[in-house]
Protein backbone atom coordinates (compact mmCIF):
# COMPACT_ATOMS: atom_id res chain seq x y z
CA UNK A 1 0.00 0.00 0.00
CA UNK A 2 2.73 2.41 1.05
CA UNK A 3 4.63 1.81 -2.14
CA UNK A 4 1.57 2.40 -4.29
CA UNK A 5 0.11 5.57 -2.86
CA UNK A 6 2.97 7.92 -3.83
CA UNK A 7 2.54 6.76 -7.42
CA UNK A 8 -1.19 7.34 -7.25
CA UNK A 9 -0.61 10.79 -5.86
CA UNK A 10 1.91 11.54 -8.59
CA UNK A 11 -0.52 10.30 -11.23
CA UNK A 12 -3.37 12.33 -9.79
CA UNK A 13 -1.19 15.42 -9.76
CA UNK A 14 0.26 14.91 -13.20
CA UNK A 15 -2.80 16.43 -14.82
CA UNK A 16 -4.89 15.45 -17.80
CA UNK A 17 -3.13 17.99 -19.98
CA UNK A 18 0.45 19.01 -19.38
CA UNK A 19 2.40 21.53 -21.42
CA UNK A 20 6.05 21.88 -20.51
CA UNK A 21 8.04 24.80 -21.85
CA UNK A 22 6.13 24.81 -25.12
CA UNK A 23 7.32 27.11 -27.88
CA UNK A 24 5.81 27.64 -31.31
CA UNK A 25 7.46 29.61 -34.09
CA UNK A 26 5.47 29.59 -37.32
CA UNK A 27 7.33 29.46 -40.60
CA UNK A 28 8.10 33.03 -41.54
CA UNK A 29 7.17 34.18 -38.06
CA UNK A 30 9.66 36.65 -36.62
CA UNK A 31 8.77 36.13 -32.98
CA UNK A 32 7.31 33.00 -31.43
CA UNK A 33 3.55 32.62 -31.27
CA UNK A 34 4.12 30.74 -28.01
CA UNK A 35 7.13 31.37 -25.85
CA UNK A 36 7.86 28.90 -23.06
CA UNK A 37 4.36 27.98 -21.97
CA UNK A 38 3.91 25.51 -19.11
CA UNK A 39 0.49 24.62 -17.74
CA UNK A 40 -1.25 21.66 -16.20
CA UNK A 41 -4.97 21.10 -16.51
CA UNK A 42 -6.63 18.61 -14.18
CA UNK A 43 -9.37 16.23 -15.19
CA UNK A 44 -12.79 17.85 -14.78
CA UNK A 45 -11.48 21.41 -14.78
CA UNK A 46 -13.17 24.17 -16.77
CA UNK A 47 -10.38 26.54 -17.74
CA UNK A 48 -10.72 29.77 -19.66
CA UNK A 49 -7.85 31.20 -21.69
CA UNK A 50 -7.99 34.92 -22.29
CA UNK A 51 -5.71 37.45 -23.91
CA UNK A 52 -5.48 40.01 -26.70
CA UNK A 53 -5.71 39.14 -30.38
CA UNK A 54 -2.55 37.45 -31.63
CA UNK A 55 -1.38 36.47 -28.13
CA UNK A 56 -1.27 32.76 -29.01
CA UNK A 57 -4.55 31.36 -27.64
CA UNK A 58 -5.61 29.48 -30.76
CA UNK A 59 -2.06 28.28 -31.26
CA UNK A 60 -2.15 26.78 -27.77
CA UNK A 61 -5.46 25.01 -28.39
CA UNK A 62 -4.33 23.68 -31.78
CA UNK A 63 -1.20 22.23 -30.24
CA UNK A 64 -3.15 20.54 -27.43
CA UNK A 65 -5.54 19.15 -30.07
CA UNK A 66 -2.65 17.69 -32.03
CA UNK A 67 -3.61 19.76 -35.07
CA UNK A 68 -0.10 21.19 -35.16
CA UNK A 69 3.23 20.43 -33.53
CA UNK A 70 5.23 22.65 -31.18
CA UNK A 71 8.65 23.93 -32.19
CA UNK A 72 9.97 22.76 -28.82
CA UNK A 73 8.64 21.54 -25.50
CA UNK A 74 6.36 18.63 -24.68
CA UNK A 75 2.61 18.20 -24.64
CA UNK A 76 1.08 15.28 -22.78
CA UNK A 77 -2.65 14.62 -22.94
CA UNK A 78 -4.17 11.77 -20.95
CA UNK A 79 -0.75 10.20 -20.52
CA UNK A 80 0.13 10.35 -24.21
CA UNK A 81 3.16 12.36 -25.25
CA UNK A 82 2.02 13.84 -28.55
CA UNK A 83 5.58 14.19 -29.87
CA UNK A 84 5.84 10.38 -29.81
CA UNK A 85 2.97 10.04 -32.28
CA UNK A 86 3.33 9.96 -36.05
CA UNK A 87 0.78 11.54 -38.35
CA UNK A 88 -1.57 8.54 -38.26
CA UNK A 89 -1.22 8.24 -34.50
CA UNK A 90 -1.98 11.94 -34.13
CA UNK A 91 -5.10 11.61 -36.28
CA UNK A 92 -6.26 8.70 -34.13
CA UNK A 93 -5.50 10.70 -30.97
CA UNK A 94 -7.63 13.61 -32.23
CA UNK A 95 -10.48 11.34 -33.21
CA UNK A 96 -10.52 9.42 -29.91
CA UNK A 97 -9.67 12.09 -27.36
CA UNK A 98 -10.40 15.58 -28.66
CA UNK A 99 -13.64 17.41 -29.30
CA UNK A 100 -13.12 20.79 -30.93
CA UNK A 101 -15.62 23.64 -31.28
CA UNK A 102 -14.72 26.69 -33.38
CA UNK A 103 -16.02 30.24 -33.66
CA UNK A 104 -17.48 29.65 -37.13
CA UNK A 105 -18.94 26.15 -36.56
CA UNK A 106 -17.41 24.57 -39.72
CA UNK A 107 -20.37 22.32 -40.47
CA UNK A 108 -20.38 20.64 -43.88
CA UNK A 109 -23.12 22.41 -45.87
CA UNK A 110 -24.21 19.40 -47.93
CA UNK A 111 -24.84 17.17 -44.89
CA UNK A 112 -27.77 17.41 -42.49
CA UNK A 113 -27.23 18.39 -38.86
CA UNK A 114 -27.35 14.76 -37.73
CA UNK A 115 -25.00 13.63 -40.50
CA UNK A 116 -22.55 16.33 -39.43
CA UNK A 117 -22.75 15.14 -35.84
CA UNK A 118 -22.02 11.57 -36.88
CA UNK A 119 -18.87 12.24 -38.94
CA UNK A 120 -16.34 11.65 -36.14
CA UNK A 121 -18.12 8.43 -35.11
CA UNK A 122 -18.11 7.14 -38.68
CA UNK A 123 -14.37 7.76 -38.86
CA UNK A 124 -14.18 5.28 -36.00
CA UNK A 125 -16.47 2.85 -37.79
CA UNK A 126 -19.48 3.53 -35.55
CA UNK A 127 -22.92 4.46 -36.80
CA UNK A 128 -23.93 6.04 -33.45
CA UNK A 129 -27.17 7.43 -34.89
CA UNK A 130 -28.94 6.89 -31.59
CA UNK A 131 -26.29 8.76 -29.64
CA UNK A 132 -26.28 11.51 -32.24
CA UNK A 133 -30.01 12.07 -31.80
CA UNK A 134 -29.61 11.85 -28.05
CA UNK A 135 -26.97 14.58 -28.10
CA UNK A 136 -29.10 16.87 -30.25
CA UNK A 137 -31.90 16.30 -27.79
CA UNK A 138 -29.63 16.99 -24.82
CA UNK A 139 -28.48 20.22 -26.46
CA UNK A 140 -32.08 21.30 -26.95
CA UNK A 141 -32.34 20.95 -30.75
CA UNK A 142 -33.88 17.52 -31.49
CA UNK A 143 -35.99 18.99 -34.30
CA UNK A 144 -33.04 20.16 -36.44
CA UNK A 145 -31.60 16.67 -37.02
CA UNK A 146 -32.66 16.45 -40.65
CA UNK A 147 -32.11 20.09 -41.59
CA UNK A 148 -29.16 21.46 -43.51
CA UNK A 149 -26.82 23.96 -41.78
CA UNK A 150 -27.87 26.86 -44.01
CA UNK A 151 -31.38 26.56 -42.57
CA UNK A 152 -30.18 26.87 -38.96
CA UNK A 153 -29.50 29.93 -36.80
CA UNK A 154 -25.96 30.56 -35.60
CA UNK A 155 -26.81 29.32 -32.11
CA UNK A 156 -28.32 26.11 -33.52
CA UNK A 157 -25.32 25.55 -35.79
CA UNK A 158 -22.98 25.93 -32.83
CA UNK A 159 -25.00 23.40 -30.85
CA UNK A 160 -24.76 20.97 -33.75
CA UNK A 161 -21.00 21.57 -33.74
CA UNK A 162 -20.90 20.87 -30.00
CA UNK A 163 -22.82 17.61 -30.53
CA UNK A 164 -20.30 16.67 -33.22
CA UNK A 165 -17.45 17.44 -30.81
CA UNK A 166 -19.03 15.20 -28.16
CA UNK A 167 -20.06 12.23 -30.29
CA UNK A 168 -16.91 10.21 -29.50
CA UNK A 169 -16.95 11.05 -25.76
CA UNK A 170 -13.75 13.10 -25.92
CA UNK A 171 -11.31 13.16 -23.05
CA UNK A 172 -11.00 16.88 -23.60
CA UNK A 173 -13.35 19.46 -25.10
CA UNK A 174 -11.59 22.44 -26.69
CA UNK A 175 -13.62 25.51 -27.62
CA UNK A 176 -12.05 28.43 -29.48
CA UNK A 177 -14.32 31.47 -29.09
CA UNK A 178 -17.47 29.35 -29.42
CA UNK A 179 -19.68 32.37 -28.68
CA UNK A 180 -17.67 34.83 -30.79
CA UNK A 181 -20.07 34.75 -33.75
CA UNK A 182 -23.26 34.63 -31.68
CA UNK A 183 -25.53 37.32 -30.28
CA UNK A 184 -25.66 37.77 -26.50
CA UNK A 185 -28.61 35.45 -25.95
CA UNK A 186 -27.38 32.54 -28.11
CA UNK A 187 -23.92 33.02 -26.65
CA UNK A 188 -25.33 32.66 -23.14
CA UNK A 189 -27.20 29.51 -24.14
CA UNK A 190 -24.09 27.95 -25.64
CA UNK A 191 -22.08 28.84 -22.53
CA UNK A 192 -24.83 27.38 -20.36
CA UNK A 193 -24.55 24.13 -22.31
CA UNK A 194 -20.79 24.06 -21.79
CA UNK A 195 -21.43 24.64 -18.09
CA UNK A 196 -23.82 21.68 -18.02
CA UNK A 197 -21.25 19.45 -19.71
CA UNK A 198 -18.68 20.54 -17.15
CA UNK A 199 -21.02 19.72 -14.28
CA UNK A 200 -21.34 16.30 -15.89
CA UNK A 201 -17.57 15.86 -15.56
CA UNK A 202 -16.32 17.07 -18.96
CA UNK A 203 -12.87 18.69 -18.96
CA UNK A 204 -13.05 21.90 -20.98
CA UNK A 205 -10.48 24.36 -22.27
CA UNK A 206 -12.20 27.50 -23.51
CA UNK A 207 -10.75 30.47 -25.37
CA UNK A 208 -12.93 33.55 -25.10
CA UNK A 209 -12.83 37.32 -25.12
CA UNK A 210 -15.91 37.53 -22.91
CA UNK A 211 -14.89 37.67 -19.26
CA UNK A 212 -18.52 37.77 -18.12
CA UNK A 213 -19.27 34.48 -19.83
CA UNK A 214 -15.93 32.91 -18.97
CA UNK A 215 -16.37 33.41 -15.23
CA UNK A 216 -19.81 31.84 -15.22
CA UNK A 217 -18.36 28.38 -15.47
CA UNK A 218 -14.59 28.57 -15.43
CA UNK A 219 -13.06 28.61 -11.97
CA UNK A 220 -9.68 29.13 -13.56
CA UNK A 221 -8.69 31.93 -15.93
CA UNK A 222 -5.32 31.85 -17.67
CA UNK A 223 -4.18 35.14 -19.18
CA UNK A 224 -1.87 35.05 -22.19
CA UNK A 225 0.08 37.93 -23.66
CA UNK A 226 2.68 37.85 -26.44
CA UNK A 227 2.86 34.08 -26.29
CA UNK A 228 3.48 33.97 -22.54
CA UNK A 229 1.26 33.13 -19.61
CA UNK A 230 1.03 36.28 -17.52
CA UNK A 231 -1.51 35.09 -14.97
CA UNK A 232 -3.18 31.91 -13.82
CA UNK A 233 -6.09 32.87 -11.57
CA UNK A 234 -8.06 30.33 -9.60
CA UNK A 235 -11.37 31.83 -8.63
CA UNK A 236 -13.39 31.04 -5.54
CA UNK A 237 -17.06 30.18 -5.57
CA UNK A 238 -18.47 30.98 -2.13
CA UNK A 239 -22.10 31.95 -1.61
CA UNK A 240 -22.12 35.66 -0.98
CA UNK A 241 -24.93 37.92 0.18
CA UNK A 242 -26.00 40.56 -2.37
CA UNK A 243 -24.58 43.38 -0.22
CA UNK A 244 -21.17 41.67 -0.19
CA UNK A 245 -21.09 41.76 -3.97
CA UNK A 246 -22.86 44.97 -4.96
CA UNK A 247 -23.41 48.26 -3.22
CA UNK A 248 -25.61 50.89 -4.74
CA UNK A 249 -24.14 54.24 -3.80
CA UNK A 250 -25.82 57.51 -3.13
CA UNK A 251 -24.84 60.86 -1.71
CA UNK A 252 -26.97 60.07 1.32
CA UNK A 253 -25.13 56.85 1.99
CA UNK A 254 -22.77 57.22 4.97
CA UNK A 255 -19.06 57.30 4.08
CA UNK A 256 -17.67 54.01 2.83
CA UNK A 257 -15.68 53.39 6.01
CA UNK A 258 -18.83 53.23 8.10
CA UNK A 259 -20.45 50.57 5.92
CA UNK A 260 -17.43 48.42 5.26
CA UNK A 261 -17.60 46.53 8.53
CA UNK A 262 -17.62 43.00 7.05
CA UNK A 263 -14.40 43.60 5.11
CA UNK A 264 -12.38 45.60 7.59
CA UNK A 265 -13.12 43.47 10.64
Amino acid sequence: MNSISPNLVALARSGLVRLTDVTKVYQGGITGALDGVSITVEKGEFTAIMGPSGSGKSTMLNLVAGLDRPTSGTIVVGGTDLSKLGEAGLARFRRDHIGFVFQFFYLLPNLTALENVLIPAQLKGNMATGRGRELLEQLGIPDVADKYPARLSGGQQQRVAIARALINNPTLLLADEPTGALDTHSGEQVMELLGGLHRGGQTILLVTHDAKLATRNAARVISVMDGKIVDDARLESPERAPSEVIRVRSEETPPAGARRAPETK
Partner: protein
Amino acid sequence: MSLKYGVLGLLKVEPLHGYEVKNRFEAMLGGTWEVNIGQIYTTLQRLERDGLVRPVGERGDRGKLLYELSSEGKKALDDWLAQPDSGPQQLHEDIYVKLLLATRIANGDLQQMLARQKRAFLQRLRDLNRLEEKARRDGRIDLARLVRGALLHTEADLKWMDELASEHFGTEGAAAE
Protein backbone atom coordinates in the same frame (compact mmCIF):
# COMPACT_ATOMS: atom_id res chain seq x y z
CA MET B 1 -31.23 61.83 -3.73
CA SER B 2 -32.50 58.49 -5.03
CA LEU B 3 -33.75 57.55 -1.55
CA LYS B 4 -36.06 60.57 -1.58
CA TYR B 5 -37.47 59.69 -5.00
CA GLY B 6 -37.47 56.01 -4.16
CA VAL B 7 -39.80 56.80 -1.27
CA LEU B 8 -41.99 58.99 -3.48
CA GLY B 9 -42.11 56.28 -6.16
CA LEU B 10 -43.10 53.54 -3.75
CA LEU B 11 -45.81 55.76 -2.26
CA LYS B 12 -47.17 56.38 -5.75
CA VAL B 13 -47.92 52.67 -6.01
CA GLU B 14 -49.92 52.75 -2.75
CA PRO B 15 -49.92 54.44 0.68
CA LEU B 16 -47.41 52.80 3.02
CA HIS B 17 -46.18 52.78 6.60
CA GLY B 18 -42.58 53.81 7.23
CA TYR B 19 -41.37 50.26 7.82
CA GLU B 20 -43.13 49.11 4.63
CA VAL B 21 -41.28 51.80 2.70
CA LYS B 22 -38.03 50.51 4.17
CA ASN B 23 -38.79 46.88 3.33
CA ARG B 24 -39.93 47.58 -0.21
CA PHE B 25 -37.05 49.91 -0.94
CA GLU B 26 -34.53 47.33 0.25
CA ALA B 27 -36.29 44.56 -1.66
CA MET B 28 -36.25 46.62 -4.86
CA LEU B 29 -32.49 47.09 -4.48
CA GLY B 30 -32.14 43.36 -3.98
CA GLY B 31 -30.63 43.71 -0.52
CA THR B 32 -27.67 45.68 -1.87
CA TRP B 33 -28.63 48.86 -0.03
CA GLU B 34 -29.70 48.67 3.57
CA VAL B 35 -31.51 51.74 4.86
CA ASN B 36 -32.06 52.24 8.55
CA ILE B 37 -35.56 53.02 9.64
CA GLY B 38 -34.43 56.37 11.09
CA GLN B 39 -33.34 57.49 7.60
CA ILE B 40 -36.76 56.58 6.26
CA TYR B 41 -38.60 58.58 8.95
CA THR B 42 -36.29 61.57 8.49
CA THR B 43 -36.93 61.42 4.75
CA LEU B 44 -40.71 61.13 5.26
CA GLN B 45 -40.67 64.09 7.67
CA ARG B 46 -38.78 66.22 5.17
CA LEU B 47 -41.11 65.22 2.37
CA GLU B 48 -44.09 66.04 4.58
CA ARG B 49 -42.58 69.42 5.48
CA ASP B 50 -42.12 70.16 1.75
CA GLY B 51 -45.69 69.14 1.02
CA LEU B 52 -44.77 66.14 -1.16
CA VAL B 53 -46.35 63.48 1.09
CA ARG B 54 -49.02 63.57 3.78
CA PRO B 55 -50.12 61.22 6.51
CA VAL B 56 -53.38 59.39 5.94
CA GLY B 57 -55.82 59.27 8.87
CA GLU B 58 -55.02 59.75 12.54
CA ARG B 59 -51.67 61.19 13.59
CA GLY B 60 -50.83 58.80 16.38
CA ASP B 61 -48.00 56.40 16.98
CA ARG B 62 -45.45 57.36 14.27
CA GLY B 63 -44.63 53.75 13.51
CA LYS B 64 -48.20 53.11 12.47
CA LEU B 65 -48.67 56.26 10.42
CA LEU B 66 -49.66 55.67 6.80
CA TYR B 67 -48.28 58.07 4.16
CA GLU B 68 -49.57 58.94 0.72
CA LEU B 69 -48.29 61.08 -2.14
CA SER B 70 -49.68 64.61 -2.53
CA SER B 71 -50.31 66.05 -6.00
CA GLU B 72 -47.10 68.11 -5.57
CA GLY B 73 -45.32 64.89 -4.71
CA LYS B 74 -46.66 63.22 -7.86
CA LYS B 75 -45.44 66.12 -9.95
CA ALA B 76 -41.99 66.11 -8.33
CA LEU B 77 -41.71 62.37 -8.96
CA ASP B 78 -42.84 62.61 -12.59
CA ASP B 79 -40.38 65.45 -13.23
CA TRP B 80 -37.54 63.43 -11.74
CA LEU B 81 -38.44 60.31 -13.73
CA ALA B 82 -38.71 62.31 -16.96
CA GLN B 83 -35.33 63.95 -16.40
CA PRO B 84 -32.59 61.83 -18.00
CA ASP B 85 -29.48 61.26 -15.91
CA SER B 86 -27.13 63.47 -17.90
CA GLY B 87 -24.58 64.59 -15.35
CA PRO B 88 -20.88 63.81 -15.62
CA GLN B 89 -19.90 60.12 -15.59
CA GLN B 90 -19.17 59.09 -12.02
CA LEU B 91 -16.07 57.00 -11.52
CA HIS B 92 -16.18 55.98 -7.88
CA GLU B 93 -13.46 53.43 -7.99
CA ASP B 94 -10.08 53.98 -6.40
CA ILE B 95 -8.51 52.06 -9.24
CA TYR B 96 -8.80 54.97 -11.65
CA VAL B 97 -6.56 57.16 -9.51
CA LYS B 98 -4.38 54.25 -8.50
CA LEU B 99 -3.65 53.03 -12.02
CA LEU B 100 -3.17 56.47 -13.53
CA LEU B 101 -0.66 57.19 -10.79
CA ALA B 102 0.95 53.84 -11.39
CA THR B 103 1.56 54.67 -15.05
CA ARG B 104 3.72 57.51 -13.76
CA ILE B 105 5.50 56.09 -10.78
CA ALA B 106 5.16 52.31 -10.62
CA ASN B 107 7.66 51.63 -13.41
CA GLY B 108 8.08 47.88 -13.74
CA ASP B 109 5.33 47.14 -11.23
CA LEU B 110 2.48 48.38 -13.39
CA GLN B 111 1.93 45.08 -15.20
CA GLN B 112 1.84 43.26 -11.88
CA MET B 113 -0.55 45.78 -10.39
CA LEU B 114 -2.79 45.34 -13.41
CA ALA B 115 -2.60 41.56 -13.11
CA ARG B 116 -3.57 41.69 -9.43
CA GLN B 117 -6.42 44.09 -10.11
CA LYS B 118 -7.64 42.00 -13.03
CA ARG B 119 -7.64 38.94 -10.85
CA ALA B 120 -9.76 40.74 -8.26
CA PHE B 121 -12.21 41.84 -10.96
CA LEU B 122 -12.41 38.34 -12.43
CA GLN B 123 -13.31 37.13 -8.95
CA ARG B 124 -15.92 39.88 -8.79
CA LEU B 125 -17.36 38.74 -12.12
CA ARG B 126 -17.52 35.20 -10.78
CA ASP B 127 -19.33 36.40 -7.63
CA LEU B 128 -21.72 38.49 -9.72
CA ASN B 129 -22.43 35.55 -12.04
CA ARG B 130 -23.24 33.33 -9.09
CA LEU B 131 -25.43 36.02 -7.56
CA GLU B 132 -27.30 36.51 -10.84
CA GLU B 133 -27.86 32.78 -11.15
CA LYS B 134 -29.22 32.62 -7.61
CA ALA B 135 -31.36 35.73 -8.04
CA ARG B 136 -32.97 34.24 -11.17
CA ARG B 137 -33.46 30.91 -9.45
CA ASP B 138 -35.19 32.68 -6.56
CA GLY B 139 -37.29 34.82 -8.90
CA ARG B 140 -35.64 38.04 -7.65
CA ILE B 141 -35.81 39.84 -10.96
CA ASP B 142 -34.83 43.30 -9.62
CA LEU B 143 -31.67 41.90 -8.11
CA ALA B 144 -30.86 39.98 -11.31
CA ARG B 145 -31.20 43.23 -13.28
CA LEU B 146 -28.89 45.10 -10.92
CA VAL B 147 -26.33 42.32 -11.10
CA ARG B 148 -26.46 42.49 -14.88
CA GLY B 149 -25.58 46.19 -14.73
CA ALA B 150 -22.73 45.47 -12.35
CA LEU B 151 -21.40 42.67 -14.61
CA LEU B 152 -21.28 44.99 -17.60
CA HIS B 153 -19.56 47.74 -15.59
CA THR B 154 -16.92 45.35 -14.32
CA GLU B 155 -16.38 44.06 -17.84
CA ALA B 156 -15.79 47.63 -19.00
CA ASP B 157 -13.24 48.18 -16.22
CA LEU B 158 -11.43 44.99 -17.23
CA LYS B 159 -11.30 46.14 -20.85
CA TRP B 160 -9.87 49.46 -19.75
CA MET B 161 -7.15 47.66 -17.82
CA ASP B 162 -6.41 45.48 -20.85
CA GLU B 163 -5.90 48.63 -22.87
CA LEU B 164 -3.54 49.99 -20.23
CA ALA B 165 -1.66 46.70 -20.15
CA SER B 166 -1.13 46.68 -23.90
CA GLU B 167 0.22 50.22 -24.00
CA HIS B 168 3.95 50.57 -23.94
CA PHE B 169 4.81 52.51 -20.89
CA GLY B 170 7.79 54.71 -20.85
CA THR B 171 7.60 58.33 -19.86
CA GLU B 172 5.08 59.26 -22.52
CA GLY B 173 2.11 59.01 -20.13
CA ALA B 174 3.40 61.79 -17.96
CA ALA B 175 5.12 63.73 -20.73
CA ALA B 176 2.03 64.02 -22.89
CA GLU B 177 0.27 66.29 -20.39
